[in-house]
């Protein structure tokens, strides 16, 4: 059997793939956090709960209404986006004038409510969600067998990330978003309905988290706690990458996911903390983050 540094290569490739999968979720979630933060100046603690809501929406659509995975990929983000729009209109929008920390506290409270309610209804244990029939099985890549669903997740997340990036960098809506991130008052003085833009951005960010949740459902189990534990790691990813650059958030997400996977191979005990350790090192060397601007 082939080995690299004494590690059997299939195990190595396997962990790199798992790292890439985790990285896909880090990238999608930190992307949404960065977009929301850029415009609203709110760290959306509920992002993890919205991811969990996406996964649960897919699960409930299937089990209650018999609606399949592919439709859930559209419906779940839509539903979570609508919930987020309501949250922004009724609560978050009241906090734009005050210290940004209150936005974090509000969304933390919302995360607790959502998480607590789902744990109350469904218990803390995870619920299985089967991958759609079209994406089951595995393909032989020559050097390893890759489950089709995992390959799909990596590709889908890349498409989502690049799509979001293009939306922000290349469209008119994106231009409004970038400009308002710099100077919201002036953009509004030009006649752009900035309050509406804020609402849409929060809805879009939350929908993105929900979409990630649907993608995650067949890989991780659907459980009320799946989001918050993940979001804390994503916070570290965001600190490492800095929130100044959308592309930076995406790249950092994938790279840290793979690094975490590699740690699992070479020093498994440290795999759960390696991202935090990297965050600490980045803070020492480059406090603004790898792609960040000091504010």
């Amino acid at each position, binding site marked *: 059997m082939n080995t690299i540094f004494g590690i059997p290569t299939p195990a190595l490739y396997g962990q790199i793939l798992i790292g890439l999968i985790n990285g896909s979720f880090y990238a999608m979630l930190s992307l949404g956090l960065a977009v929301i*933060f850029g415009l609203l*100046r709110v*760290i959306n603690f509920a992002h993890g709960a919205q991811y969990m809501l996406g996964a649960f929406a897919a699960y409930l659509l299937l089990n209650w209404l018999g609606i399949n995975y592919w439709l859930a990929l559209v419906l779940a983000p839509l539903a979570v986006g609508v919930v987020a729009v309501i949250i922004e209109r009724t*609560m978050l929008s*009241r*906090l734009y004038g*005050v*210290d*940004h*920390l*209150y936005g*974090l*506290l*509000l969304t*933390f*409270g*919302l*995360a*607790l*409510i*959502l*998480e*607590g*309610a789902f*744990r*109350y209804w469904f218990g803390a244990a995870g619920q299985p969600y089967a991958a759609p029939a079209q994406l089951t099985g595995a393909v032989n890549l020559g050097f390893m067998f890759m489950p089709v669903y995992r390959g799909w997740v990596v590709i889908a997340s890349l498409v989502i990330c690049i799509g979001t990036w293009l939306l922000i960098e290349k469209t008119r809506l994106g231009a409004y978003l970038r400009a308002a991130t710099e100077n919201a008052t002036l953009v509004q003085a030009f006649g752009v309905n900035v309050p509406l833009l804020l609402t849409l951005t929060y809805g879009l960010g939350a929908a993105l988290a929900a979409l990630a949740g649907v993608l995650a459902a067949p890989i991780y189990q659907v459980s009320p706690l799946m989001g*918050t534990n993940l979001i*804390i*790691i994503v*916070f*570290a990813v*965001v*600190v490492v990458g800095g929130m100044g650059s959308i592309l930076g958030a995406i790249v950092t997400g994938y790279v840290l996911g793979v690094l975490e996977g590699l740690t699992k191979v070479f020093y498994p*005990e440290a795999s*759960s*903390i390696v991202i*935090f*350790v990297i*965050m*600490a090192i980045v*803070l*020492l060397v480059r*406090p*603004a983050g790898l792609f960040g601007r000091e*504010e």
Partner: protein
Amino acid sequence: MAVGTEYLAEQPKLRTSAIVLGAVAIAALLVAPFFFYPVLLMSILCFALFACAFNLLIGYVGLLSFGHAAFFGGAAYFTAHAAKVWGWEPLAAILLGVVGAAAMGLVMGFLAIRRQGIYFAMITLALSQMFAFICLQVPFTHGEDGIQGVPRGHLLGILDLNQPLTMYYVTLAIFLFGFFAIWRIVHSPFGNILKAIRENERRAISLGYRVDRYKLGAFVMSAALAGLAGGTKAIVFQFATLTDVAWQMSGEVILMTLLGGIGTLIGPVVGAGLVIALQKYLAASDFPVTVLIGIIFVICVLLFRRGIVGEILEFTKRRSKSAA
């Protein structure tokens, strides 16, 4: 984010009434165990001290730490281990918890003060989560089980802490010690510089203060006091578990402080009392505690950001202003 307490010092009349109020409160605390369960009271005292320690940072320096559970729970582990495995005398074991929490505060603070505002909150949260992962893995914390059956022992070899009343008064003494330590810090020249940093960091820098050192100093003190609360908790309840270091615990202490009043001296005490009492009350029903905590968070942030005590102070302030 804070409501000034300096205001009290400027008003001689209010100051007298504050002293009277304080004396009444201490008297009430002395007789309280004859009316309420000492265990509930001790729980409130430990969390009140924890919240006061947290408030030192957010209320007087304007730094929101989302990782204070690491100090509270870390100290609980250190104290529990020293008392149970090494057979240390309880006060020494608690002191070890304080020193350990302060050392952790030094490391975490050193990293976290490199960023401000929202980033500071995220970094402290991430670092405390890392500490929670470490606690899950290292052998001395006993993983999911935690350290159980910690002996209360004899304080200084004399006072038997297994007597509930003795334990209560020792806890009360520790709480009062911590509370007055915070009061002293806040009203010292050091505390005034902290408040200056909170109001306008750039200005404090241009005045020649090495702001980072003051922030780090405050962070370490806050961590040490949170450690005092956590160590005491480990002796009182005779266990230390992962719950104490989890992010939910950091969230709870934020809520206690927010509910009572950020930047007020007694707000965190009031908030801790309310939250603990609520949890106790809800434990009997099947309503999920997390949901309630979340709801209180949302209500506080949207409707009364000054907290209960902060709103009362603001009210009396406005009344005395209009009377003048």
